[in-house]
């Protein structure tokens, strides 16, 4: 049984409301924080080794310490709740069932960073969660944890919830800030980084929901104790949202000490693959990270057991490894088609490209078209190399990481499943007739238009 410190209380009835949350020890971390100096809170977070849970895995305490503090200029904390990476639904779970945990984390972090106006930027589709968060914020206000002169410290803070309107790119921190300023979500060129010039040109920290919620257990147990959970630089616990072909899809909190095999097959987590089917492949960290075939997923190229940690998942680089990413764990069983899966992801990135940089704007469209041709029996062998060439020319040549995110899944699919692409090219009839989905009802050609 793994250690749970983030969502351990999620099943207590009424935990969504202030009273039960408080009775169960909630806001103790906030009370503790307000007795500390802001710099000491930053120090605790640094000691904890907490890494950004949005996908990049950048040390949160270090990000906080970069925040510029010029005299007379407001600083902002922005919570990135734009969760849109296919396969990822952990932040939604946290906000929906433990809203006060996030609000408490935000209050502590706002105090540590000196943000008097803190924003939660939430994806527009999660509209019912906006109500849940606003209710929690109102309760925190009533109970003196938000508003003016919090707990007599002289510190003022208010939290506002801003809805997006449907754009994956707004999960990228500078696009998010553009959107929060009421503009199109076009990422900004860095530097300057948001820590120096962010929201309305003021110093800003942008952190993921799970990262900010994790500040609560860190304050409660202390940074050193938090750092003792997990292996190496993968400290603390991580939420994994598991989906695809598994018996028990859902959100799991893992302390980073278990193996990938245990995560997929044990009853405590995913519970294996339905209908006794075999594991074919897995995208372990959200759609952008490289897909791995079963053998490389369970064991690294060195022959070691692959663990659910940042380091182990990326062991072998992109040649034989993948990434922890956002923790969106997508499992494919033996009957799934890698070409088709890659096509839906390529379509996703084409749809979500903001259009600013030509390699991404044009390249994502070309990749989708070529994959569409291969999937529907109109592909040529040379298309596979062309696809490889395009993805290589997108990667690293764009302002923001969306270009890389679009290139990696295509590259990994070709790298590990080239034979499947070739099969589609050599068997155009069969690839057109192949039956996908539950009941074989759809004629995919029509659905896709």
């Amino acid at each position, binding site marked *: 049984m793994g250690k749970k410190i983030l969502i351990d209380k999620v099943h207590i009835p009424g935990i969504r409301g202030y009273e039960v949350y408080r009775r169960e020890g909630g806001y103790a971390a906030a009370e503790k924080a307000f007795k500390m100096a802001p710099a000491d809170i930053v120090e605790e977070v640094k000691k904890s080794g907490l890494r950004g849970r949005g996908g990049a895995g950048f040390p949160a305490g270090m990000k906080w310490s970069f925040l510029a503090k010029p005299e007379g200029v407001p600083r902002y904390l922005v919570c990135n709740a734009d969760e*849109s990476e296919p*396969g990822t*639904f952990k932040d939604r779970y946290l906000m929906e069932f433990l809203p006060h945990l996030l609000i408490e984390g935000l209050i502590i972090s706002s105090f540590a960073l000196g943000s008097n106006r803190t924003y939660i930027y939430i994806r527009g*589709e999660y509209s019912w969660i906006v109500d849940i968060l606003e209710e929690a914020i109102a309760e925190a206000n009533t109970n003196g944890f938000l508003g003016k002169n919090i707990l007599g410290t002289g510190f003022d803070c208010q939290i506002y919830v*801003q809805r997006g*309107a449907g754009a*994956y790119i707004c999960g990228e921190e500078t696009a998010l800030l553009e959107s929060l300023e009421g503009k199109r979500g076009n990422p900004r060129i860095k530097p300057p980084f948001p820590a120096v010039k962010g929201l309305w040109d003021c110093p800003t920290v942008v952190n993921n929901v799970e990262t900010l919620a994790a500040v609560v257990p860190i304050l409660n147990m202390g940074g050193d104790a938090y750092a003792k959970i997990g292996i190496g630089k993968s400290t603390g616990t991580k939420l994994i949202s598991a989906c695809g072909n598994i018996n028990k899809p859902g959100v799991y909190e893992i302390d980073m000490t278990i193996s990938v095999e245990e995560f997929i097959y044990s009853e405590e987590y995913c519970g294996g693959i339905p209908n006794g089917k075999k594991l074919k492949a897995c995208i372990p960290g959200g759609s952008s990270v490289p897909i791995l075939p079963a053998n490389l997923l369970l064991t690294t190229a060195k022959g070691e057991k692959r663990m659910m940690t940042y380091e182990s998942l990326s062991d072998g680089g992109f040649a034989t490894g993948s990434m922890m990413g956002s923790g969106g764990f997508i499992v494919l069983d033996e009957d799934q088609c890698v070409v088709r899966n890659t096509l839906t992801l390529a379509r*996703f990135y084409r749809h979500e490209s903001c259009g600013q940089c030509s390699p991404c704007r044009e390249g994502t469209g070309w990749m989708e078209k070529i994959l569409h041709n291969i999937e529907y029996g109109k592909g040529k062998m040379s298309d596979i190399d062309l696809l490889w060439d395009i993805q290589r020319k997108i990667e690293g040549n764009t302002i923001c990481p969306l270009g890389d995110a679009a290139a990696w899944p295509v590259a990994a699919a070709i790298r590990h499943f080239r034979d499947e692409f070739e099969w589609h090219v050599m068997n155009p009839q069969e690839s057109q007739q192949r039956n996908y*989905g539950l009941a074989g009802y759809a004629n995919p050609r029509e659905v896709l238009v």
Partner: protein
Amino acid sequence: MVEFSSDKMKEVQRIIEFYPEGKQKSAVIPVLHLAQQEFGGWLSSATMDYVASLLKLEPIEVYEVATFYSMYNLKPVGKYMFEVCHTGPCMLNGSDDIIAYIGEKLNIKPGQTSADGLFTLKTVECLGACGYAPMMQLGKNYREHLTKEKCDAIIEECRKNSSMNN
């Protein structure tokens, strides 16, 4: 005539106060959501111009936002919009079947509205419900673990609600 009721104007004011003075441009996204909800489920140019005047913006500042984000409808839609996800994890769990089934049942293709103006079928990219796939967004809420039977029930429910409101 495009104009918010006094209740909705209060809501607009509440949203504007989220931001520091002079930064009401930030309110454009939430106010467009409100306008779409109030004025027939889509944003006409009259609606967008109205939002621009409310926030003291140039109309182009509103147009460029409205055309960027996928949740804004720039042409009329049915009373009920079925936004069915078809990205990777939903596809692995049979979303293509669901889309085809709804399409056949309502005699429309993705992107179209049924002849009676009740239903629009739209395919969307990942909505963050991958563990509960296949799924659709209907109004404010998600409908998850979709099956053909569930789709039948949802369509019936919409028809019933619609006839009760008339």
